């Protein structure tokens, strides 16, 4: 029986092989020799690229599934997302996997790039592989942004608005770019259709083409050998040395591919677990631009930019928005041309290690700032966050009156008391120690001089209200501390 089956399999297999000729075309590619070191334990450094590609395929599979139900029309997209979440069997799960796998793809591409950078794998003869990789990173971020827009909710709507406002600052051509980007004079149906085409056809097409080119380069120029300190790259001798090295190498189809497969499978399991436990993202608020109280935030891959835009000085802002990202991309593209020879081991390249540490820390800090966004007024704090009772426990009637004025004039949207409230202005829990009565009145009336952080309230605070509010603010002092006084002032009243 077994024999017959084997014979049948051989005959059928042979029939196809006689026509497809895979043994002479595909097998040599799968079995191309890689350096022995890359097939050994150090090969675990090489698994991030294939994991990125695995997640790309997972995105394509789940994306096609979602496209069967999702309606890319501004008036029904939101409902179709709710339908996916609540009525379509496993709809929420597919949306969830698509979101988490997309996030995972951004993470994996960045990790892969960091590894390649630290190991100097971009040096001769793999400069073009790196350039393709940079383009793949940009396309992956493009997928993240356009995908966020397809989740047609308030964040999506205002995310496009912010993108358009940034593009609108391009000298001369700005308004034209805005119209091309949003597909007309306003954000709406044509915008969503446009981003759907970008997310589903244009960017994935480019991604697949560039992944093909990236892999082609990996195969033709070979996988880089693990870096060894003291063995610098010299373009004149590298090819011959590499040729010798792979003679002692191992076929890719073997230990290396097993590592790739195992790591990719683990990554997929983690993604699916996150998707099952945390669930899909959104849709959030309705895509109705007249709903005030919207609090738009970009998805996490762009929080660092959100933070950067808030923290950059006004004079530099347009530069930070338009030129800075371009400069970053050009720097990345230039990496293999600035150093395409020399040491590869991170232990011999302190500058490369420093770049990764400083760059990574900067991105992490900006992302954290973007997440907490202390610069944003808390629009509901004036009515939602009451004055802490401890603060007004021993207040006089006038000070109590002032506390009410302080609350009513929306001061809490920017000023916290005992840590609760907006963080845009300073916490005022002990302002009475820092500012005198006169200084407080000046600050409230005129705001920060030169159009700084605080608006001038002069016209909208009546004298009686000002009296009460300042009395309240002067009373905000830790126990036993005297009120602030100016340098020349003596203690007598």
């Amino acid at each position, binding site marked *: 029986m077994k024999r017959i089956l084997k014979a049948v399999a051989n005959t059928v297999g042979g029939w196809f092989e006689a026509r497809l000729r895979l043994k002479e075309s595909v097998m040599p590619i799968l079995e191309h020799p890689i350096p022995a070191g890359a097939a050994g334990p150090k090969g675990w450094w090489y698994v991030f690229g294939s994991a990125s590609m695995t997640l790309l395929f997972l995105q394509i599979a789940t994306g096609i599934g979602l496209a069967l139900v999702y309606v890319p*029309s*501004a*008036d*029904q997209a*939101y409902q179709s997302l709710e339908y996916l979440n609540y009525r379509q069997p496993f709809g929420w799960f597919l949306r969830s996997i698509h979101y988490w796998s997309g996030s995972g793809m951004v993470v994996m591409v960045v990790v892969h790039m960091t590894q390649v950078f630290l190991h100097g794998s971009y040096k001769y003869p793999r400069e073009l592989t790196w350039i393709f990789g940079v383009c793949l990173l940009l396309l992956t971020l493009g997928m993240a942004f356009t995908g966020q827009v397809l989740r047609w909710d308030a964040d999506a*709507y*205002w995310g496009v*608005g*912010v993108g*358009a*406002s*940034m593009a*609108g*600052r391009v000298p*001369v*051509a*700005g*308004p*034209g770019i*805005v*119209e*091309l980007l*949003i*597909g*007309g*004079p*306003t*954000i*709406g*149906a*044509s915008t969503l259709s*446009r981003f759907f085409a970008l997310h589903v056809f244009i960017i994935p097409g480019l991604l697949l083409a560039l992944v093909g080119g990236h892999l082609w380069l990996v195969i033709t120029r070979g996988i880089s050998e693990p870096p060894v300190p003291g063995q610098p790259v010299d373009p004149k001798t590298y090819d011959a040395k590499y040729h010798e090295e792979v003679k002692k190498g191992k076929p890719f189809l073997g230990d290396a591919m097993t590592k790739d497969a195992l790591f990719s499978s683990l990554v997929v399991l983690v993604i699916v677990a996150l998707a099952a436990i945390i669930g899909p993202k959104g849709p959030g608020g*309705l*895509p*109705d*631009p*007249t*709903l*005030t*109280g919207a*609090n738009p935030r970009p998805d996490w891959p762009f929080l660092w930019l959100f933070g950067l*835009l*808030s923290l950059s000085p*006004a004079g530099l*802002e347009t530069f930070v928005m338009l030129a800075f990202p371009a400069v970053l991309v050009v720097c990345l593209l230039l990496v293999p041309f600035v150093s395409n020879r020399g040491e590869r081991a991170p232990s011999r390249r302190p500058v490369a290690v420093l770049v990764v540490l400083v760059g990574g820390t900067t991105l992490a800090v900006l992302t954290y700032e973007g997440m907490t966004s202390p*610069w*944003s*007024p808390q629009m509901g704090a004036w009515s939602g966050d009451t004055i802490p009772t401890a603060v007004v426990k021993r207040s006089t009637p006038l000070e109590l009156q002032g506390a009410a004025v302080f609350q009513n*004039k*929306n*001061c809490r*949207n*920017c000023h916290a008391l005992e840590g609760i409230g907006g963080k845009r202005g300073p916490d005022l829990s002990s302002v009475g120690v820092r500012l005198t009565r006169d200084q407080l009145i000046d600050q409230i009336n005129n*705001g*920060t001089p030169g*159009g700084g*952080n605080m*608006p001038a*309230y002069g016209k*909208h605070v009546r004298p009686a209200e000002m009296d009460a509010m300042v009395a309240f603010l002067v009373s905000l002092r830790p126990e036993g501390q005297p009120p602030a006084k100016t340098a020349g002032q003596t203690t007598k009243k």
Partner: protein
Amino acid sequence: MSEPTAPKPADAPTPEEPTRRSAMLWITGGVGAAAAAAVGVPVVGFLAGAVRARPIDWVPIGKVTDAALFPVNETRLHIFRNPIHEEWDGDSAKTGAYIRNLGKDDKGQEQFWVFSMICAHLGCPVTWFPQSALFMCPCHGGVYYENGDRASGPPPRGLYKMPWRIKEGVLEVQAPHLPTLQDTLEKPSDVVQLGIIKRDRGERA
């Protein structure tokens, strides 16, 4: 390396002499270019179609004398459907204007402040706080005074003013495009035309 070079056929033409083959190449090139242009021109025209004429539309908000709609010296958010939209826009076709009735001026003419909700910094929606007479933006903390002037934060200018008029006792607001720094509602950009399509600045009948 060791492959012997194929001997030239005896009747090979000299390079200067035009042949049927080179004529064929020229014809293929010409027909190919014509085919590329035949497809390319409409495709480029289609893509550039987003940049098109914006007809001017006026949206009636309400009777100027209606004190419930326009109380004097109070700023109210008025919501309307933007005529510059498609049928399938859904809620995204809604747009808002902060309108403040300033009462009659010296000539007995009703005066209004009409502001877009779009923050001049990066386009987020501002909220009006009557208690402190400020507009605040939730994104990066832009703040504006009641007259629309920038009060604090990152906006490089005040709120975008929306053109308005009174026609037969009704306050009308001009249908807004998405305002950006170089393409405001009062002074739309000429660049949008790109010299291809003249924007229709006349009124729609």
